[in-house]
């Protein structure tokens, strides 16, 4: 980093992880160079002043807002994108330990105005053992299905080039006081010796049905089951066991609530199955070095390339809808010719129009001193664990969803691991569910790692074919044994524990509809500080990125009139002007992405 940049950034900015551009040199070795554009406030100095005028002002650099900024900038809008924080990402940011501390303090300060979070409890028993900048902690961690609108957008917009993706193959379910891994692929169903031939056939039939469920015929058949609970539907039609149904519904479907209806259940499982084996035998990806926060930055970079202006540390104070003038708390003003978009978390102090926050997500984030590699698939460093309803001693009504991030994810040092637990349960009950799930995870990892004789690093070789041609398969259940007779001899060291509640106007099944936006524009009085401000939403409880692009598109069409030209840009490579970059004539973008995914030769 150059001296001028260093000196121009505030102390709070100095406390940050290396940015994408710093982590990755502008020109990579190998044949696919990719230039990472600079981002004001990170590698470049922060703008000294706010410009006089812009077409669209966006307050908050959360993921939805960042996608919107990039889409508008590429459409030709003059975008000013600001954030009240000294970092990017807003409510979906990725933070260091010091930033988390400051964030907790501000959450608990109970300042007037909109509160997106509350009750942040932070516990750091050994501060000396935590080097703040070694950590990337997501406020709203998410995983990305391979077949998803966001991944398509990342590829189309070429933002994926600023990121690094890793896969997750292992999805564990807590059942009968132990963990099991679902047989969800054709391979697993075929080789799992614990399944009878009849069950194999039924499971495969169900999987095929789900994959074909978008066909007109099946969609029509499904109409009959419109109001049937999903669990009842599979029990009746496919004769599967309750444990299998739980796995389908909560682990493959990742449903955040119980009692989902058939159509919802089918589409959530389809999301998993259709993502499987697109780029390899895994359904889900996540971005290395942090989730939504990294993605937000990626889209901001893209917006910056298209001409958007960035300014951090800028809190909106009021908006004068008659003269279309936005004023910030430092007194600076900007004329907004078209629209002001604002995240509820960045609303002016006396805002009146902020969307109602009806729903809650309670999160528990811990850093443990264990690699937890026992839970990861060979070569991977993340996993998903689900506690279905009524599997915890607290008789949890809602499932507890857990994302496990090992050191290979670039989010914590070696020998450590971050566990993200969350539930849509509310209040004290939510905290109890999370604590109990945490202790089950603790028992499990101690048991697994203690039993050194049981090598859980499963590889392809687990399929044993004897010289005589017969085949036997070691079941790929990694967390198989029951807890009951287990007495841990060591204790797990927690380095960090953070619990907080997050509020949102988006329900757990997270699809935002456009009426939400039309409503915010109509409501309120002309004299209020936020009349005619277009509000986005706080992040939902959805564990995947689904719904994010939909919301960005809805905001986009609310501003532009339609989403026909949402990212309708031909991203030619301007970075290099040699013919060698003309792969576009030979391979399409998807292929190119696949190459980068699959091969590390």
């Amino acid at each position: 980093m150059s001296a001028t940049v260093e000196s121009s950034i505030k102390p709070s900015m100095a406390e940050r992880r290396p940015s994408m551009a710093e982590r990755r040199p502008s020109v990579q070795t190998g044949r696919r160079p990719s230039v990472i554009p600079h981002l004001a406030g990170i590698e470049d100095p922060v703008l000294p002043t706010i410009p006089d005028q812009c077409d669209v002002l966006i307050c908050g650099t959360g993921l939805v807002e960042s996608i919107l900024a990039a889409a508008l900038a590429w459409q030709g809008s003059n975008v000013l994108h600001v954030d009240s924080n000294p970092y990017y990402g807003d409510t979906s940011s990725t933070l260091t330990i010091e930033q988390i501390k400051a964030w907790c303090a501000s959450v608990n300060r109970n300042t007037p105005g909109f509160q997106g979070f509350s009750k942040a409890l932070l516990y750091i028993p050994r501060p000396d053992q935590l080097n703040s900048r070694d950590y990337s902690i997501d406020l709203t961690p998410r995983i990305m299905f391979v077949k998803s609108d966001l991944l398509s957008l990342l590829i189309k917009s070429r933002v994926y080039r600023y990121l690094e993706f890793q896969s997750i193959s292992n999805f564990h379910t807590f059942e009968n006081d132990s963990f099991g891994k679902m047989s969800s692929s054709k391979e697993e169903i075929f080789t799992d010796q614990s399944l009878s031939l009849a069950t194999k056939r039924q499971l495969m039939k169900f999987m095929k049905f789900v994959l074909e469920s978008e066909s007109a015929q099946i969609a029509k058949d499904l109409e009959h089951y419109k109001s049937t609970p999903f669990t009842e539907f599979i029990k009746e039609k496919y004769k599967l066991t309750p444990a299998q149904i739980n796995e389908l519904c909560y682990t493959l479907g990742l449903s955040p609530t119980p009692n989902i209806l058939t159509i919802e259940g089918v589409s959530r499982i389809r999301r998993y199955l259709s993502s499987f084996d697109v780029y390899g035998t895994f359904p889900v990806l996540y971005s290395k070095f942090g989730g939504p926060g990294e993605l937000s930055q990626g889209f901001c970079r893209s917006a910056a390339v298209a001409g958007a202006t960035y300014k951090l540390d800028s809190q909106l104070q009021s908006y004068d809808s008659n003269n279309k003038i936005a004023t910030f708390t430092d007194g600076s003003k900007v004329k907004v010719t078209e629209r002001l978009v604002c995240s509820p978390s960045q609303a002016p102090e006396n805002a009146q129009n902020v969307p109602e926050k009806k729903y809650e997500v309670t999160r528990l984030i811990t850093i443990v001193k264990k690699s937890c590699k026992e839970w990861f698939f060979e070569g991977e460093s993340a996993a998903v664990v689900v506690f279905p309803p009524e599997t915890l001693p607290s008789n949890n009504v809602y499932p507890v969803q857990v994302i496990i991030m090992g050191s290979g994810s670039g989010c914590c040092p070696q020998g450590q691991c971050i566990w993200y637990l969350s539930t849509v349960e509310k209040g004290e009950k939510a905290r109890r569910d999370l604590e109990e799930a945490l202790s089950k995870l603790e028992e499990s990892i101690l048991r697994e790692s203690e039993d050194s004789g049981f090598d859980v690093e499963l590889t392809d070789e687990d399929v044993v074919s004897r010289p005589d041609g017969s085949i036997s398969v070691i079941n790929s259940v990694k967390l198989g044994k029951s807890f009951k007779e287990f007495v841990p001899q060591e204790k797990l060291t927690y380095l960090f524990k953070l619990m907080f509640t997050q509020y949102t106007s988006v329900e757990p099944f997270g699809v935002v509809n456009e009426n939400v936006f039309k409503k915010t524009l109509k409501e309120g009085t002309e004299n209020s500080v936020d009349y005619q401000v277009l509000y986005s939403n706080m992040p939902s409880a959805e564990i995947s990125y689904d719904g994010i692009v939909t919301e960005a598109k809805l905001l986009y069409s609310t501003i532009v009139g339609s989403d026909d030209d949402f990212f309708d840009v031909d991203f030619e490579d301007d970075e290099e002007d040699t013919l060698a970059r003309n792969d576009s004539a030979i391979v399409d973008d998807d292929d190119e992405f696949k190459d980068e995914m699959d091969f590390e030769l």
Partner: protein
Amino acid sequence: MLWMLYSKKSDTIRDDPFRASLERRTRLTKDTRLQKIKKDAVRIARYRALTDRVLDNKQNRVYNGKTLAQTEELLDINPELYTVWNYRRDILLERFKTCDSDAIHDIIKNELALSVEHLRRFPKCYWIWNHRKWCLEYDPLTNWDAEMAMIDTFLKADSRNYHVWQYRRYVVDRMKLGQTSQEQLDTDLQEFNYTTKMINRDISNYSALHNRSRLVKMLFENSPESATVFHTKNKYEFLVQELQMVKTAFYTDPDDSSVWIYLKWLLGDYFIGSISTEQARQVVETAIADINELNQLELEDNGVDNQWCLKSLVFLEQQLAKATGVQSGRKNAILKKLIEQDPMRIKRYENSMD
């Protein structure tokens, strides 16, 4: 044409609140279009100039480091230019003349690394695979482990890539040339186990089943001592075990044609002809019973027979008759069902009628 549509729209709707952005869009699209046309013209000129330069040098037989680099540049853009691959090989052959085997190996190592880069982008390009084979022919010190690792990576990415499987068989054959006869047998056995692994990963992997069929034949012919079934040439025992796998497979997915074609081979003349009549009768009857049971389940669930079950039953009835010398009389009834349910192949069924 999109931008014209938009500009029209903004002309007619005077009060369009979105007019500003529509106009911007018009401007932007127009600009980028012009830019693109210009850029393309530049690219074509550059590509043609490069091609001309390379082909002229080729005609003049200019073999040096610079022309070698030029072929690389051109093949990077278009790996289908077989003429340029040829030229590249001529340059390399010229270079080999002054090299010892270590130096040749180093040059080829570089060629192989380059071709991996190409294959990452064009995994189905014949010319690149062929170039790789050509390289191995000239490499006195091939690292076979590295080759096999490279093949594994590509088959992991696409387990049905015809070219990769082809290359794998080629590499194994080449590798075996330098092995003792015991080592060769072990290699075949390893290859057989590899097909097991690939089939477990995906039972529809017909490429793996194909390779398995030829390895089984090879193993029965050459009988390695470490492999009991193959060593004792006990085809019956192998068949029983293999049929168990096939049964699991067709239960898992009754519509997977790969497995049914493989079953047809297992119960075809190669095996049936070399076990006892009693054994043949037993395996075929067991298979018929299993398939009938599966078809019954399919019938209950779907309301129709499973065509693969029926097709296989026809074949098995034929084999049973062959083994026992007695016609069961069931075959024609099954064929009649097939004629009704699969009219696309009606002629084949009619021809099979007794």
